């Protein structure tokens, strides 16, 4: 009935898959491609599955173009990307490119263009530790698995312009030369579509140039910044292993800012005890304790919050985040809800009667940008000299001592077993439980106290199960508590 007799030297269309998250402009990009193909006179078809309107789920678009003008018959276009004949894969996020490999679409015949900045998923965010998937290994995998990888650091590339990722990707697609589309046709499509024409044309040019240059624009890794301790501490720091000196300097700086120099000296004294017990070749234990100890000793009470919220540079930082200069009136509202415990903690024990029952805490919306709000927080921070008399201070110091004692005892077990501070380092890492505010902090400290109360006896009677208990606690502290 239906006889098709036509032939061509081209055996299949050029296939392009686009993976994006809702709201990233994937639909507009596909419209540009369809229009540009039509302009150039090539048969093409696009389709998509934007079934739900929600703007956070992963969605894909698929495009096929037959690279011959006026072919002898209608080429067959289909709806789904397939393994082994995907020529181009565009991802607006690196794990979406990874997902295309996972699903079997991307192979060594595919050129992948991907934005490099991660957009974290809920699954990654809900972990209490670090649940992030690093873009690095995913990009490496793409590099190995594909014909060519073009990385787009959209933020860096678009700096100073209003260009968005989809327009940059469009330019990069054309820049690869895989589709027989001219830049001229594509520019015309952007103009015709009429959506943010100026910035999209700018983005297109950026992408075009980037693909042609084929330079690797891998994002710079966020580095750590170590603050230095005052010169007067130089000889004290020199008494510690080289590998731990940066973090110790940083810790000292933090604690002087937090309280005073003598508090920083207390830090060094405590750390010295651990150093003396640290027989490990890498001195890792000293480094780990240096980090945890400085963090724990600078626990956040209302005094500290007042201090941090009135940092001299804070308002200008907020201005730069909003992109407004000093002349523009700015209102900053801080969400602060101290409960009775927070106030009790800040006061000496015998003055606790001063604090009324605050129920579920007082929900404060402090106008930090205004004189009164700022002054109030400034007043809180001025209570610093009283801190060492406060109830919370005494509690926290006792807990710290108890933890350090547990670490010390663990080193002895490690030495007996000749395992290079294995248990001691893990015990040091238990300090993660001393975090947060209010109920979260209280629960964590209680857990530690319960464990350390029987530490010595358990160490001698059943070190193996104690070790397992430590692992379990660390694991849970990093997991999603909703699933625990």
């Amino acid at each position, binding site marked *: 009935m239906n006889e098709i007799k036509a032939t061509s030297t081209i055996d299949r269309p050029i296939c392009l898959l686009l993976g994006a998250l809702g709201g990233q402009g994937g639909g507009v990009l596909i419209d540009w491609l369809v229009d540009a193909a039509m302009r150039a006179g090539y048969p093409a078809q696009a389709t*998509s599955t934007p079934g739900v309107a929600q703007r956070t789920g992963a969605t894909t678009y698929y495009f096929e173009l037959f690279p011959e003008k006026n072919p002898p018959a209608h080429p067959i276009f289909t709806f789904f990307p*397939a*393994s082994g004949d995907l020529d181009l894969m565009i991802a607006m996020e690196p794990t979406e490119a990874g997902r295309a490999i996972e699903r079997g679409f991307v192979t060594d015949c595919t050129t992948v263009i991907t934005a490099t900045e991660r957009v974290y998923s809920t699954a990654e965010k809900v972990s*209490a530790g670090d649940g992030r998937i690093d873009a690095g290994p995913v990009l490496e995998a793409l590099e190995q698995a594909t014909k060519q990888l073009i990385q787009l650091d959209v933020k860096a590339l678009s700096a100073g312009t209003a260009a968005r990722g989809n327009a940059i990707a469009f330019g990069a697609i054309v820049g690869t030369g895989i589709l027989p589309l001219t830049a001229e046709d594509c520019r015309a499509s952007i103009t015709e579509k009429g959506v943010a024409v100026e910035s999209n044309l700018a983005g297109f040019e950026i992408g075009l140039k980037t693909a042609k240059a084929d330079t690797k624009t891998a994002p710079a890794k966020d580095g750590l910044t170590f603050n230095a301790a005052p010169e007067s501490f130089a000889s004290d720091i020199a008494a510690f292993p080289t590998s731990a000196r940066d973090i110790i300097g940083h810790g000292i700086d933090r604690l002087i800012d937090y309280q005073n120099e003598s508090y920083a000296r207390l830090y060094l004294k405590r750390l010295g005890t651990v150093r003396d017990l640290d027989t490990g070749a890498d001195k890792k234990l000293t480094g780990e304790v240096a980090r945890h100890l400085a963090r724990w000793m600078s626990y956040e009470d209302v005094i500290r919050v007042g201090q941090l919220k009135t940092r*001299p540079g804070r308002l200008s930082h907020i201005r730069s985040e909003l992109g407004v200069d000093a002349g523009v009136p700015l209102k900053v509202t801080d969400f602060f809800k101290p409960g009775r415990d927070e106030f009790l903690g800040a006061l000496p024990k015998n003055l606790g009667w001063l604090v009324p029952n605050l129920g579920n805490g007082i929900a404060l919306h402090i106008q930090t940008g205004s004189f009164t709000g700022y002054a109030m927080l400034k007043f809180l921070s001025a209570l610093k000299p009283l801190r060492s008399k406060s109830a919370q201070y005494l509690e926290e110091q006792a807990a710290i001592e108890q933890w350090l004692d547990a670490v010390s005892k663990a080193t002895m077990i490690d030495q007996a077993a000749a395992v290079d501070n294995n248990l001691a380092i893990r015990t040091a890492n238990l300090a993660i439980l001393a975090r947060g*505010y209010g*109920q979260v902090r209280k629960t964590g400290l209680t857990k530690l106290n319960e464990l350390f109360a029987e530490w010595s006896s358990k160490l001698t009677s059943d070190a193996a199960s104690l070790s397992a208990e430590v692992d379990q606690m660390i694991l849970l502290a990093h997991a999603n508590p909703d699933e625990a």
Partner: protein
Amino acid sequence: MDGGTALARVTQSGERSFTKEIQKLTLGKGEEFHGEGILAVTKALLQSGVAYVGGYPGAPMSHLIDVLAEASDEILEPMGITYEQSASEAGAAALLSASVHYPLRGAVTWKSVVGTNVASDALSNLASTGVKGGSLIILGDDYGEGSSIMQERTYTFAMKSSIPLMDPRYDMERMVDLTEHCFGISEASNMPIFLNMRIRACHLTGSFIAKDNKISEFNANNPIPEQIYDVTKIVLPPASYQHEVAKFEERLPAAAKYAQENNINEVFPGAGGRLGIITQGGTYTVVMRALQRLGAADAFGNSDIPVFCMNMVYPLITDEIVDFMKDKDSVLIVEEGNPNYIETQIAEIAHRKQINCRVHGKDMLPMAGEYVSNVVREGVAQYLAEEGPAEISNTALEKNTEIQAKTQTAQSYLPGPMPPRPPSFCTGCPERPIMSALKLLMKERGKFHISMDIGCNLFGSLPPFNVGNTVLGYGLSLASSGAIGPALDQPNVAIMGDGGFWHNGFTSGVVNTRWNKYDSVLVILDNGYAAATGQHKVPSTGATPRGMASLLSIEDALKGVGVKWIKQVDSYSMEATIKVLREAMNARGEGLRVVISNNECMLARQRREKPAKAAALKAGQRVAQEKFGVDEEVCSGDHSCMRLSGCPSLTLKQSADPLKETPVAHVDETCVACGNCGEVAHAAQLCPSFYKAEAIQNAGVFRHLGSAINRSLLAMMGAKQ
């Protein structure tokens, strides 16, 4: 943050504006149409002379309804076409009664299989009665990747009600042609007809040469002179038995005859030979691509293997099948979905007609799931390898193995699984805080049972909220708590959107609960639209899709059936919301307690307010620029806030501080300053790291002066800005 009012919404159009699309619907004979699949089908309706169109929106056919709503003045009224966005799919199906007695062509549409479920009462009656005017039901089939509904086949409905089912080959020219033929089949067989459109087909782009639009002989501008009474069209005995007989003795054979005479199904004979593939029209291109990938076809569909493409998949046409199979040793049936009705019918035909041809199908292809390219290629490869002559068999095997190896190699480089990314509430969504509030309330009083509904609210059952226990259908959350409520120690909560309330929730839920005196809590999320489908108007939006002001009140409806306990909450105020929810939970014994959250869908609001703000800024008017932020130094890094808020703009950031063991929270530039993160931090007593920053652009003189004084005072205390 205040919610949008119904009045503000009246002037608001839907998710997209369709001016360009409307122009395409007016194309005349010989002009070329370029556009989306579902729009092409809409144009085909106009070319077929429909007198009425209706439907209930849902992916993937919403655009049909949206475009026609906007085309009201330009196209529908001059042509006398009656149009409505019905209150439910059942209502849309009931519109087809216009074609029972009268020569009126009509089309209705909805999402399948869910909408077909809702419509089935009307459909069964209609199918029994039969029709005079062509009656088309366009089904937006949401089966496969990314679908938000249960995966079932529409085919079952076609079989049980004896309604012909079209599953067209997706070449736009052919698709339009087949849509027009649907009316012919319907009129020839006196049956309504289904046109099944897969999600990717609705969104495909393509072109065809248009015809002039056709005005129905009778229409709203030219009414039928008199009504017709015919008792044989009433489903009562003895007519109902006669209908049943007529379906099988007259109507289905008439449909088959029309299809055969008009070449609805297509044979692509290819190079001939003793193999063959039988496919649904909708999977034709997937089959042809598989053959091409396996070296058995070229880019234009010239194939080594004959292919029988069935654009009408119910009823099957025995003669055509016998013709195709009689000289074959074997056939492969590519039939997406489950159960494999087509395959079993063909096997039965082969058996009864004693055709010596092996029938393959679900033995080589998966029982369930979408028939995507890779799946079909594997199945076809197995078929060619097992049944094909050496040359075809070897090539197919070799090519398939090569593709498999390539794929596995690529996959082997991946460091691990990629993160799942299910849909969730948008940034600033007014429904999110309700889920946060429920989660917090559960921490306070232990977990309680929550019946969810269809719509955005259902995302509350996913991480990070995890607060939904069941979902039973659109508008059925309250009804579904009837039996479970009394059996649990805590009151149960039903969540329902405004869309669900009007669709079914009021009668099946509220009225039933009142009548049976159930003790229950209902939370209505009134965001002004059926938001999940793309902001479709509902009776409480304030306007019809055609822009006519019309407002029904949810609260009045509740009061009308005697609900006493009704409280409104501003969901963006977390403490207040929790308080009201707590009261509702504690008011056990007081019957139905209804909490209504009335804040507008944030997407709709942003779509209206963003351009207005930009314009005001340009015009030099006072504009508040708002954003939330996190003080990195204060953030405790345990991510409690994310487990309670789930906001897309609240994300993770590597801290530069070496003392921070875990990444800190960060509010990115997509923040719309709804304030939920701050409210959650308060309600759950999280760390005091959230702040709201508000810059006043183009402020007045006094504001500037006040601000300057303030700045110098702050500077005296050490602040730099």
